[in-house]
């Protein structure tokens, strides 16, 4: 092998011990012979949907298996040595020195009781790579390289005193501090807002470039990985689907699955014009929690039957609070909501059954939105029983009809939510909302927790149902690609205020206000060199700085 290879994975097989109902454990292979090489200073992107084995493969380069995951075959060569054969003490000298790890959730990865600087230099000192003062100097250089504000003093803060995007960069500094040969980035920007993601991405790319470290970059977002990786490996069900240079994967994908990933965000609904009177008028709503700060400030939007209003914004922009006001969980301080021409009672417990039936909600996390102790049949049958008093055979027929509509097999009614996949669960939640025959459905980030191809299916289903049932959707999301896909009108929220509101074409075409420009330009595009181009042309800095 050439001496330039930092990491060489040869025919890697990984198994997981699954406990069977009879108490015996059985090995199931989850990665079936994957091979890859990373040269010095190069970045390999691992991409795939959840369960593809991308994190498992990434962690194998630290010879680590989460839970009962075990490496059952193949070799992982780090700097020419098989790290599987290193043993406990050998691994200890490699981890944190030659190979480091950056996790998805930086806030969960830091010890909240210790200052950042102590955690950043910990492994450097542990391995005796530098004296304390040298390590601190290096950490400060890295903070500067990652364009963190106030690099001299930020280290003396505690994890809760910096923002999520900054914390993710501090974690990158922590990984870079011992001057490793390889860093594993496990979805480092997935939990961040889109405008923050772009800064972290740029910082990581810059730091990789400056230090010349090799990296594995794990993500489910092809557009993100296209910006940082030199090579991309597309994984599915623990197998390599396609492995090639970033340019080839993005511009000339060979396999059908890769093609589907590259084109996933291309559905786009035609914008419908508002014709009839609106189903719901939200007028000058101001709301907040307790006596504290105002979360929503003078927001007015309208919803029309058979159309979708997309409410876009970053976390903290007040978009979910708007949903709480509409559902009546949070009565507004000022303003009113008109529903079908009548004023809607502000408090949910005082609303009429008819109003409750007409406004339904679908949640982001289908896992927690369904009672794990109820069967699917009970979950979607209860609204029918509750609102329409239907029982017995007719109820079962209507449940079957609903399952047909959401394209799930009928026998799923006897199963429990825990036995379903993420996409199936979200479909059941849609069916539950649909069961009430509502006039308005509030969709709160319904596709954010799903893999892109699955999310695509959900969006198509929602559009299809909207066409047949003529419901209005209030679609809360932070993802502008989703907005383009389904919205008729768009409300851009920023710090509790409407930054921009109108028909989709108008909102998404220039001239933009500064915030909308920042938001729109931050959405990663599946194009090489997009990151560099966009950073040089922005009008406004994101909140992360």
């Amino acid at each position, binding site marked *: 092998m050439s001496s330039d290879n930092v990491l060489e994975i040869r025919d890697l097989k990984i198994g997981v011990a699954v406990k069977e109902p009879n108490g015996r454990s059985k090995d199931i292979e989850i990665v079936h012979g994957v091979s890859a090489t990373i040269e010095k200073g190069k970045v390999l992107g691992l991409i795939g949907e959840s369960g593809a084995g991308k994190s498992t493969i990434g962690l194998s380069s630290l010879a680590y298996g989460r839970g009962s995951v075990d490496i059952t075959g193949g070799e992982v060569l780090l700097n020419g040595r098989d790290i599987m054969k290193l043993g406990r003490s050998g691994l200890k000298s490699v981890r944190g020195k030659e190979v480091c790890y950056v996790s998805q959730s930086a806030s969960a990865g830091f010890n909240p009781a210790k200052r950042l600087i102590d955690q950043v230099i910990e492994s450097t000192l542990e391995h005796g790579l530098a004296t304390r003062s040298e390590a601190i100097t290096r950490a400060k250089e890295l903070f500067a390289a990652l364009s963190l504000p106030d690099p001299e003093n930020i280290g003396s803060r505690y994890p809760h005193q910096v923002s999520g995007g900054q914390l993710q960069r501090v974690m990158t500094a922590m990984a870079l501090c011992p001057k490793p040969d390889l860093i594993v980035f496990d979805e480092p920007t997935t939990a961040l807002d889109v405008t923050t993601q772009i800064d972290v991405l740029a910082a990581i790319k810059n730091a990789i470039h400056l230090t010349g470290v090799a990296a594995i970059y794990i993500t489910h977002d092809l557009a993100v990985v296209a910006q940082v990786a030199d090579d991309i490996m597309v994984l599915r069900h623990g197998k390599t689907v396609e492995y090639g240079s970033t340019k080839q994967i993005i511009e000339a994908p060979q396999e059908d699955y890769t093609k589907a990933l590259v084109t996933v965000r291309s559905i786009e609904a035609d914008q419908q014009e508002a014709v009839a009177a609106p189903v719901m008028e939200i007028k000058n709503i101001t709301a907040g929690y307790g006596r504290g700060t105002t979360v929503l400030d003078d927001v007015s939007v309208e919803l029309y039957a058979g159309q979708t209003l997309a409410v876009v914004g970053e976390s903290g922009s007040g978009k979910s609070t708007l949903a709480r006001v509409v559902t009546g969980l949070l009565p507004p301080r000022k303003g009113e909501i008109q529903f079908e021409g009548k004023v809607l009672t502000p408090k949910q417990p005082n609303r009429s059954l008819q109003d409750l039936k007409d406004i339904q909600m679908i949640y982001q996390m289908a896992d*927690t939105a369904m*009672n794990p102790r109820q069967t699917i049949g009970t979950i979607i049958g209860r609204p029918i029983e509750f609102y329409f008093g239907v029982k017995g055979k007719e109820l079962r027929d209507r449940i079957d009809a609903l399952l047909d509509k959401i394209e799930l097999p009928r026998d799923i009614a006897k199963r429990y939510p*825990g036995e379903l996949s993420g996409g199936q669960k979200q479909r059941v939640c849609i069916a539950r909302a649909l069961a009430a025959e509502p006039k308005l459905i509030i969709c709160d980030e319904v596709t954010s927790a799903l893999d892109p191809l699955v999310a695509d299916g959900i969006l198509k289903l929602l559009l299809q149902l909207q066409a047949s049932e003529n419901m209005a959707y209030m679609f809360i999301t932070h993802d502008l690609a989703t907005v383009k896909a389904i919205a008729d009108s768009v409300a851009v929220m920023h710090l509790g205020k409407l930054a921009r509101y109108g028909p989709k074409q108008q909102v998404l075409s220039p001239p933009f206000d500064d915030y909308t420009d920042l938001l729109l330009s931050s959405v990663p595009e599946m194009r090489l060199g997009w990151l560099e181009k966009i950073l040089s042309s922005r009008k406004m800095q994101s909140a992360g700085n």
Partner: protein
Amino acid sequence: MKFKDIPISAWIGILSTSVFVFAAVFAPWIAPYDMADPVGQVWEPMSWKHLLGTDNLGRDLLSRLIFGARTTLTIAAIATLLSFFVGAFLGMLAAVVGGWIDQLLSRFVDLLMSIPTLIFALVVLSVLPSNLITLILVMGVLDATRVYRLSRAVGVDINVMEFVEAAKLRGENRVWIITREILPNAMSTLVSEFGLRFVFMVLFLSALSFLGLGIQPPQADWGGMVKENKDGIVFGIPAALIPAFAIAMLAISVNLIADWLLNRSADTKGGRGEL
């Protein structure tokens, strides 16, 4: 759930608890003598005639132990049920309704819990007429404070889940929310707690009887039997240790079962996956 999934420790617990329950249910048929008859000398040693010897009045110790199982188990079980109905209902109510009802109940429970249970029970029982109903009520109500705390804590956790919010938005009333949405998810925690509380009830009842405020003679119960025979220990007579050993055995075996249930409820599927 399959039988072979049950760990050996739980089997031991189930087996020995069943022996106690069996003895309690069929006491009149399996006890060799009547529990109140003096059938021998005072503190006779173990023999074929009296398998465990006799007590301080010459009564057969095995017979009293068997009848004592009946009294102890019945009263402890009724008191535990009472404490669960009261505690779990009020706890769930406080969790779901919140506000001043929660404040009122929680502070009242704090007040009750701040007084040592045994001393509180002694005072109440010495004032009130001593009969079984008072005894059960006092034990049940005092223990309900613990159950209240647990079920309120579990209830508050589940109450903020989105499926409960979905039920509220649907317009479901509180009875449905408590019984259909929250309780099924709190059940495994409560059931395993039931075992533990039952053990504490047995200990509590034995302590009360030992102090002379529990079961009144000539009724046999284990705590009372320890009290009756405690003077024998000075003369090297083990009669007091036998009921004490029975109390310990029951506590351990119920704990073994509760431990297994708790493990099951702690697993990621909430135990449901194995049912």
